[in-house]
């Protein structure tokens, strides 16, 4: 069995890694971002959830094929929560894919101020002490 992984930049206390989340992280390790799709009604979720919000049926992990998005909103965090203090300032962005699915992640390669509506690309990188792969936005 593969070593259990956690998605984190700084620190998270949500350490209860379920089989569903473990599978998500294993895909992420191979630079695949997974959404989930309800096996009953077809509703899609990003980030993925194991149970459909509408009919509570099982939702299955399915690869996101969309790679390009637009910046829906952003914040430059100048004063961070304690566990991310060493990383400040950092930029958190909500990106919106053409399908309407959204994703919250850092933008890590900005050289200028972000603007709402600017194009974003999905990227992956190793982060933190555990060198876990995580997803990110790139401009």
């Amino acid at each position, binding site marked *: 069995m593969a070593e259990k992984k956690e998605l984190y*930049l700084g620190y998270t206390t949500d350490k209860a890694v379920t089989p569903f989340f473990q599978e998500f992280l294993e895909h992420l390790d191979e630079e695949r971002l997974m959404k989930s799709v309800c096996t009953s009604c077809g509703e899609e979720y990003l980030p993925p959830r194991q149970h459909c919000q509408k009919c509570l049926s099982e939702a299955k992990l399915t690869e996101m094929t969309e790679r390009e998005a637009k910046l829906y909103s952003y*914040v430059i965090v*100048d*004063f961070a*929560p304690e566990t*991310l203090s060493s*990383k*400040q300032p950092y930029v*958190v962005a909500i990106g919106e894919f053409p399908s309407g699915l959204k994703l919250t992640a850092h933008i890590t390669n900005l050289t200028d101020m972000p603007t709402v509506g600017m194009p974003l690309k999905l990227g992956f990188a190793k982060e933190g002490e555990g060198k876990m792969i995580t997803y990110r936005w790139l401009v």
Partner: protein
Amino acid sequence: MARRVAVVAGGHSKFGKRYDATMRELTAEAYKPIFDEGITQDKIDASILSYAASQFTGQGAGSALMADYIGLQNKPHLRCESACATGTASLRAAWGMVASGLYDVMLVLGVEQMNRVSSATATEYMSRAGDMRWEYPFGVSFPAFYALMASRYMSEYNMPHDVLAKIAVKSHHYGAQNPKAHLPKEITFEEANNAIPICRPLNLYDCSLITDGAAGVVIAAEDRVKEFTDRPMWIKGIGAGASENMIQDRPSLTSIPGAKYAAKAAYKMAGLEPKDMDMAEVHDCFTIAELIAYEDCGFAEPGKGREIVENKDNYHDGRIPVNCDGGLKSKGHPLGATGISMTYEVLKQMRGEADKPSRQINDVKHGFVHNVGQSGQFVNCFIYERGW
């Protein structure tokens, strides 16, 4: 048929960095003026403690400690929690208990002690109210959630930061006249517009304070009201709403869906409209939150909240005076006490007992309270009516 319920008394501690007190002394400070008005422990049937975040002090089961400290050790009590909307959530619960006939007289006490940890640790604790798996690891702090709303609002409506700075100037103008306020000082527009960034586009003066404090109110059933006061403030309307947990899942970031719903429900129950309100206490945890509240509460059309700011309609002598006690921004924001403090302020204004004429709103018949938890996951709106 539910019985009518009124707020009959209120008390308020000094807000601030209260290193001279712990939660128990703060609670006593809020109850003492109520006791002095004759609402002694024997008159109270039960209490609710509005206490949002036990991680700040480590004190669990807070309602037992507080009830015991103020002499209510033999009266039923419970603790209520709905993040920053805990105060009005407690009042909503208490209203139900009194309106239903379970109790006649209840004390609702709000308290929070937040300054025994550093600002970074406090920011850490509050950010854990976000989704621990999908938001928190990216360091989306409490100000960051509102900054995400601000970025989107400023872009959609092409609004400069100046408008937000003017809200901060107004809050401090009134906080400076409130002896209970945490940071009672005037600030200039330049100071407010150019302060150090916290979560851009929000700066230091866009953010509310990390505050210690307590506030309490007593509510009573209509057939008992006369025992306590000839100036009751009737609870005329209550509305509650909720919004998507992850902020990215909201249909819009220029409005808080749960707040719009809560306000509408409160107006419907009261049979009143926004134009009938003579004052409002809104949840200005950040300046952008106050601006959005003008729109969600129906005082301005979507995208037009800035007109209230630019016309100074939100001042004590304006069309819809808002937060003339300094708001969360200058009076302070001890999470569990905030919704109770808002209610206390409406009672004081209605009774003509604001501390100074320069912040007394004239002839308040109807007052509105808008109290938001987290970034909109919990919202309670109350409409109060003068009963004399």
